[in-house]
């Protein structure tokens, strides 16, 4: 899907590119449902599938659907660390490993140095010289604190210099105790596949030495704003699954994305969409020869032609990688006002660079993945910028969104409920124009609002 078609203010169809032949096609309907996933790949490196993207949501946004809480992105604490510049993807090690795995770094700097020089192995460091920092800081939840908390704690230790690999950006996830307690067979039953995956990628066996892990972008809580019926601000356009913003606030709990996607798809949307469609059955089928379809198709074709016309020297990935660096640096795990402003500026510059230097080989009329990627990158620039804007606006720390200016003495997130207990929904106002912020107040009538506490 490359564009959404709106007739009389209602979603009536899409323009899609046939990936095999390149043909630009029109499809009409009485309603459109977007289930197009999250935008974590804005960061280039993430645990998402290579073709995960935010383009469909961005097309809807440009056509009038509000985009909610874009700055809420989840950084997963247990991923295999980055190992070089040539990497295009990061691998997740499931959170389930934290049921039995214990996370630690050495207490002594000399052990850290020896580890980095490969003079000792983790297993040789005695128990009393290990800092099980999650168990130390959060005794009640221990290794099973939520993801944002675990990620920040890993960053804190690594920033303090205790990272255990050459790059200084890794901590241990250790199964020695679990193997002792449960035996090889039980551990194998629970995590055998993950151990195997880890060993294949790193050539180190978690049976002998602890895994090395580091946080990475994993999921996006923000997405298209939807009402209780999962309808966006465009009548007839629905958004479900990771593509909407609905249920996870500032941070999603593990194993709740599939729950939400299936709840939306099986049990909520099929009912709520009926309310809208009950007014529509008397209407004739959508006419794909309507001028609105022709216009949208023309715009898509022009966008594609514009990309081919650049004829520069850079690959799409090389520019996307730069966007990833900007995002991770300025809109990553810790954000501040100055950095976010810088980030917005840098994204703007990179966008210009793209339109001057990108090279997409081949033609539209064939299977052309470089073209697909280029079209997505154009949208990632806009998402990245929107994330930074939202992060700049939200002057509080909350869930996965950590503003350095807003933290407690212990380095925990500090919310500002008085000023920010709202959903930030952004309305597109045109290219190069700042989007408009709309606020949906959040009311808590059944739950006592408190500072999150995973200590006791």
């Amino acid at each position: 899907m490359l564009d959404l078609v709106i007739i009389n203010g209602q979603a009536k169809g899409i323009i899609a590119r046939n990936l095999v032949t390149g043909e630009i096609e029109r499809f009409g309907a009485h309603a459109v449902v977007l289930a197009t996933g999250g935008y974590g790949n804005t960061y280039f490196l993430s645990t998402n599938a290579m073709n995960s993207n935010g383009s469909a949501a961005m097309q809807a946004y440009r056509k009038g659907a509000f985009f909610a809480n874009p700055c809420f992105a989840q950084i997963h604490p247990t991923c295999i660390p980055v190992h070089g510049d040539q990497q295009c993807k990061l691998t997740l090690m499931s959170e389930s490993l934290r049921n039995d795995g214990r996370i630690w770094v050495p207490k002594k700097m000399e052990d850290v140095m020896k580890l980095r020089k490969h003079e000792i192995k983790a297993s040789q460091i005695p128990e009393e010289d290990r800092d099980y920092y999650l168990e130390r800081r959060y005794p009640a939840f221990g290794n099973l604190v939520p993801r944002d908390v675990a990620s920040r704690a890993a960053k804190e230790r690594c920033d303090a210099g205790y990272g255990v690999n050459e790059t200084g950006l890794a901590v241990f996830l250790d199964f020695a105790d679990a193997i002792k307690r449960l035996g090889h067979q039980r551990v194998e039953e629970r995590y055998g596949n993950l151990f195997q995956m880890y060993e294949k990628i790193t050539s180190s066996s978690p049976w002998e030495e602890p895994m090395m892990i580091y946080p990475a972008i994993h999921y996006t809580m923000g997405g298209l704003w939807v009402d209780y019926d999962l309808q966006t601000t465009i009548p007839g356009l629905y958004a479900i699954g990771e593509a909407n913003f609905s249920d996870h606030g500032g941070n999603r709990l593990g194993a709740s994305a599939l729950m939400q996607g299936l709840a939306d798809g099986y049990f909520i949307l099929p009912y709520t969409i009926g309310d809208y469609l009950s007014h529509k059955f008397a209407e004739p089928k959508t006419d794909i020869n309507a001028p609105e379809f022709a216009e949208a198709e023309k715009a898509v074709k022009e966008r594609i032609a514009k990309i081919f016309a650049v004829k520069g020297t850079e690959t799409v990935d090389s520019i996307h990688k730069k966007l990833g660096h900007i995002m991770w640096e300025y809109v990553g795990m810790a954000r501040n006002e100055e950095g976010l402003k810088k980030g917005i500026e840098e994204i703007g510059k990179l966008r210009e660079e793209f339109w001057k230097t990108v090279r997409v080989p081949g033609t539209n009329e064939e299977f052309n993945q470089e073209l697909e990627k280029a079209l997505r990158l154009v949208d990632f620039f806009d998402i990245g910028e929107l994330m930074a804007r939202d992060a700049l606006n939200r002057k509080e720390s909350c869930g996965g969104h950590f503003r350095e200016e807003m933290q407690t003495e212990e380095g925990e997130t500090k919310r500002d409920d008085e000023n920010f207990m709202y959903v930030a929904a952004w309305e597109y106002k045109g290219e190069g124009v700042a989007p408009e912020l709309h606020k949906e107040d959040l009311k808590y009538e059944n739950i006592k609002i408190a500072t999150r506490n995973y200590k006791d």
Partner: protein
Amino acid sequence: MSDPKLISKIPDGPLAEKWSKRKAEIRIVSPNNKRKLEVIVVGTGLGGASAAASLGELGYNVKIFCISDSPRRAHSIAAQGGINAAKNYQNDNDSIYRLFYDTIKGGDYRSREANVYRLAEVSAAIIDQCVAQGVPFAREYGGYLANRSFGGVQVSRTFYARG
């Protein structure tokens, strides 16, 4: 006051009754009229696939789109950990309320109460639906569905497939 452009349509009444209330109000389309209606679903992950299948079963004409060589290869297949549901199979005092509470708290008090409560409410049915479709969830020796824990909770409510 919320922005007038953002009408959340959250039903009033007690939290636990909101979804039932909304369902009772929602107009439905009779089977012979569903046949006249077309819905486009973009995406074939668990969200899009479950929606398209449900809408198709209901009798709507559904067109579904994806950008991978096979619809099955949506990002959703990468999931490793499992899926939550307030079944309380472990008898560890889990409940709809507890799942609701954990999710709001985990989200650092920035999600809608009504949506999250509904999510917790329908969670149990998802597992039944999946089991009926033959999802090979991990089971205990005795045949019961197995569970494990994920971050931010103190119960064991995650259903998973053994690797």
